[in-house]
C-alpha cells in the first residue's frame, strides 16, 4: 500500500518541542511533505534561528518518519523563508501561548 502524506504528517505529530510543549506540526513548523515510493522529503523550519535544538529536531523528525512501515528513508530540509510566526500555529497552540 502506498504511503500517503497524511501518514507522514501523523508520524511528525509525535515529535514534541520540549521547550514549548507542543508537537512540531501544531506549532506550524512543518512547511511541506512529499512522498515518492519509499522515500519521504520533509520541509520544515524552527521558531528561532540559532536554536540549540536545531540538529535534534531534524533528527527526531527523520526518525519518526522512518519508523513508518513502507518508508525507507527520509530527508529533512530546514528552511528559513518564510520565517515562522505564530499565525502558522494551530488555534490550540495560540491559545495556550496567550496569542489568541
Amino acid at each position: 500500500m502506498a504511503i500517503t502524506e497524511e501518514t507522514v504528517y501523523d508520524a511528525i505529530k509525535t515529535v514534541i518541542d520540549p521547550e514549548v510543549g507542543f508537537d512540531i506540526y501544531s506549532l506550524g513548523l512543518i512547511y511541506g511533505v512529499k512522498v515518492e515510493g519509499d522515500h519521504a522529503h520533509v520541509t520544515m523550519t524552527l521558531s528561532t534561528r540559532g536554536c540549540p535544538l536545531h540538529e535534534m529536531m531534524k533528527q527526531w523528525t527523520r526518525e519518526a518518519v522512518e519508523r513508518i512501515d513502507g518508508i525507507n528513508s527520509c530527508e529533512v530540509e530546514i528552511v528559513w523563508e518564510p520565517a515562522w510566526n505564530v499565525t502558522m500555529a494551530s488555534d490550540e497552540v495560540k491559545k495556550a501561548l496567550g496569542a489568541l
Partner: protein
Amino acid sequence: MAKNLATDMAPPFVLVAHYFLAGAIFYAFSAFLLPFYANEIGGYFLSSSIASLMHLYLLGFVMMVIFGAMYQLVPVVLEIPIFSKDFAYIQFYMFVGGILLFTFGLWNENYTQILPYGAMLVYISMLIFVANIFLTYKNITRWDIVAKYILVSNIFLLIGATIGFIIALNLIYGFYPELVNLVQMHIATTIFGYIIMTIMGIGMILLPMFSLSHGFKQTAIHMAFYTIIIGLLLFLVGTLLNLNLLKFGGVIFTTFAIFAALYQMYLIFSTRIRKQNDFWAKNMMASFATLIISFFMLATGIITKNDLFYILFGFTLFFGFFTFFIVGHIYKILPFLVWYQRYSPLVGKLKVPMLNDMIKEKVADIQFWVTLAGLLLAISAIIFKIPVIFQIGTVIMGIGTLMVMYNIYFTLVYGIEELKNYYKQHPIS
C-alpha cells in the same frame, strides 16, 4: 548515550555543564561571603577585599556561565563547530584554579607570592578562550549582528584581560603609578566591552527564542553596537592620555548604547507571543530594571563625584542585572543540558518530560521575589550606610541563592530513578 545525536554543529553539552556547575558553586560561595562585607559598604571601592569578592563573583559566576553558554551557543548561532573542545576543557581547569589562587591572593593581600600565579592562570585561560573563538571565526560565513557582537566582545576581553594581568604585575613591580587609570580601563573593557556586549549580542538569540518574539526591528541593537565601540574606545584613549573630555564622551556614547540595547529588548518583549510572566520573564524584567537603576547611580556618581554612588552602581549592576539575567537563563539552559543527556536518546521510545517539568517553578518564583527583596534592602543599606541592614539584605539574597541551588540539584537528579528502571528493562545492547 547521546553520542548518536552528536554532530559538528551540536554543542558539547557535558563541557557546558562543567562551566554551569562551577559557576553555580562560585555563585553560592560569593553569596555566603557577601554579608561579611557589611562594614565596607561606605568605604573605598578599590579596596583589596572588595576586589577579591568582585573577582570571585564576576570571574567565578558571571564569566564562568557566559563562557559555558558561549560554547553552547556559538556553534548553533554561527553555524560552525567550535575550533577545539580540548582547548575548552584545558581552559576550564586553568580558569577554576586561577580564580581560587587569584582571589585568595587578593583577599590575603599577598601580591607577590600567590596573586601573580592566580592572575597568570586566569590570563592564560582567557587567552585560550579568545584564541578558540577567533580560530572558530576563521570558517564563518554568516555575519549577522550576533556574530559581530561576539567577535568584538572577545577583542575587548583580550584587551581587558591583558590590562588585568598588567595590574597584577604592577602590584609587584610598581612600574606604572596611575593604578586608578589601569583599573578604570580594566573595568570598562571587561564589564562593558566583554560581559555587557556579550549579553547584548546573545540576548538577540535568547530573548526571542524563549519569549517567541518575531517581527521586531533590529535598528536599535545595530546602533548600540557601533556606539558602544566608539564609547569604549573614547574612554580608553581618554583614560590613557588623561583627557577628561574624551572620557566623558566615552561615558555618554556607552550609556547611549546601553539604552539603545534596552530599547531593543523592550521591542522584543513587546512582540512576544508567550505572554505568561513566568520566572524567566520576571528575571528578565528585573535584570533590565536594575540595569537602568545602576546607570542612574553611575550618572549621579559622575555628577556628584561621590564614591558611594560608584559602589551602588557596581552592586546594582553585579548583583541585580547580572544575577537576574544569568539565573533566569540557568533555569532555561540547565534543564535543556540534562534533558539532552538523559532523555534525547529516548524520544519516541518513552514519554519524555518537558523542560519546565525539570524546574520547581514555585521555588523559582519565590526565589525571584526573595532575591529582589534582599537586593532592595541591601541597596537601601548602602545608601543610608547601615551595616546591619546590609547584612540582613545580603542574607536574604543568600537564601535566594540557596533556592537556586535547590533547583539546580532538582534538575540534576531529575528522572534518575525512573530511567534506572527503564534501562533495567531495556538494557543497551
